[in-house]
């Protein structure tokens, strides 16, 4: 994820594309996500990147309320299109973390002592970071699983769906919802870790139970 380098034209183009069909960085209301990206941009985007400019001017109008907007500011690499490589390095274990730069890596003349101190602090930071559990992106998905007809054994269908196991997938509650003509669809909740489980995979595995399942739809998809 991430937009690349937002101070470069290429990064701004990614942002522009991302915002072509979105009013905000995340969801449908202004949030800390927008503030985080807004603060990373040094000046209003050029007029030819008009989606980015529209968004920029809109977020600027919320300048006074920025502290009270919902959400939590995350590293820039967490926002944006999922198919863009995260080049900010904030999310990985690379040494180019913003915090580490504070410990004087810009100094040209580093005394032995200062260097040793820095190495020590680096090691401390790394160990602290590795101990902290990573915040995992999760989503709550509501699936509609439709049977062939009203004679399909819904209990067996549910069993088949729940038998699908995957790392990062947890099944939740379910209920049977009538859709007409005596047919009922299975509406089942699940919580998935975004990195590990996708709806494509779920669809493939559920529709593999061809005897019971006619089709599957995603009824609702919410980020947790």
């Amino acid at each position, binding site marked *: 994820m991430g937009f690349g380098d937002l101070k470069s034209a290429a990064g701004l183009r990614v942002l522009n594309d991302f915002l072509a069909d979105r009013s905000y960085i995340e969801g449908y209301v202004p949030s800390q996500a927008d503030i985080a990206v807004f603060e990373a941009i040094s000046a209003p985007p050029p007029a030819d990147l008009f989606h980015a400019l*529209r*968004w920029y001017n809109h977020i600027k109008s919320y300048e006074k309320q920025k502290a009270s907007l919902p959400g939590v500011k995350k590293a820039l690499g967490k926002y944006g299109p999922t198919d863009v490589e995260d080049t900010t390095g904030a999310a990985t274990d690379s040494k180019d973390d913003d915090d580490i730069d504070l410990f004087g890596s810009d100094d040209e003349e580093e005394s032995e002592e200062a260097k040793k101190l820095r190495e020590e602090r680096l090691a401390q930071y790394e160990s602290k970071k590795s101990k902290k559990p990573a915040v995992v992106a999760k989503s709550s998905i509501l699936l509609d699983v439709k049977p062939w007809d009203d004679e399909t054994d819904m209990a067996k269908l549910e069993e088949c769906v729940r038998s699908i196991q995957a790392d990062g997938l947890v099944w939740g509650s379910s209920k049977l919802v009538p859709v007409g003509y005596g047919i009922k669809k299975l509406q089942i909740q699940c919580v998935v870790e975004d990195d590990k489980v996708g709806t494509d995979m779920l669809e493939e595995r559920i529709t593999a139970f061809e005897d019971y399942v006619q089709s599957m739809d995603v009824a609702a998809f919410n980020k947790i």
Partner: protein
Amino acid sequence: GVEELVLLEKLLGLPKGSKYGVRGERKVPVLQTNNGPGLTGIMTIAAYLVKQAKKEQLLGSTAEEKAIVQQWLEYRVTQVDVSSSKEDTRIILKDLNIHLEDKVYLAGNIFTLADILMYYGLHHVMVELTVQEKENYLNVSRWFNHIQHYPGVRQHLSNVVFIKNRLYTNAH
């Protein structure tokens, strides 16, 4: 007409039970008030409801905002409601697409009655658009998708789906 005014009442949090009627061939909605002949016309009734609900900010705050809200309400009634042919619709969508290029809401940065009534007025149009048309009018699609997710607006109306990944690589 009347249905959207009922939806608007609910969105504004007003109590149910207002008496609506229609007048004339074009079925212009009429709201019966306690005293007097009643209010006629969508714009009039909608503005009245907003004031009843004490949500005047939906009509705009500055003089310019108020004017823009009125402008789009007028557009809704004089252009959108009378459009019947595909060509008329195309012109409207093109107009809106240009206007929304640099704005999040019709009035710029604030959500107003203009967005609400334009959403209700255009819903039947957006529902029928093909994927390519929705991509063509990218700004309208973005705006429509935003408004239909605004709490309380969509209610029982169907959710129009907008695909995130663009299938047609055309110029903006």
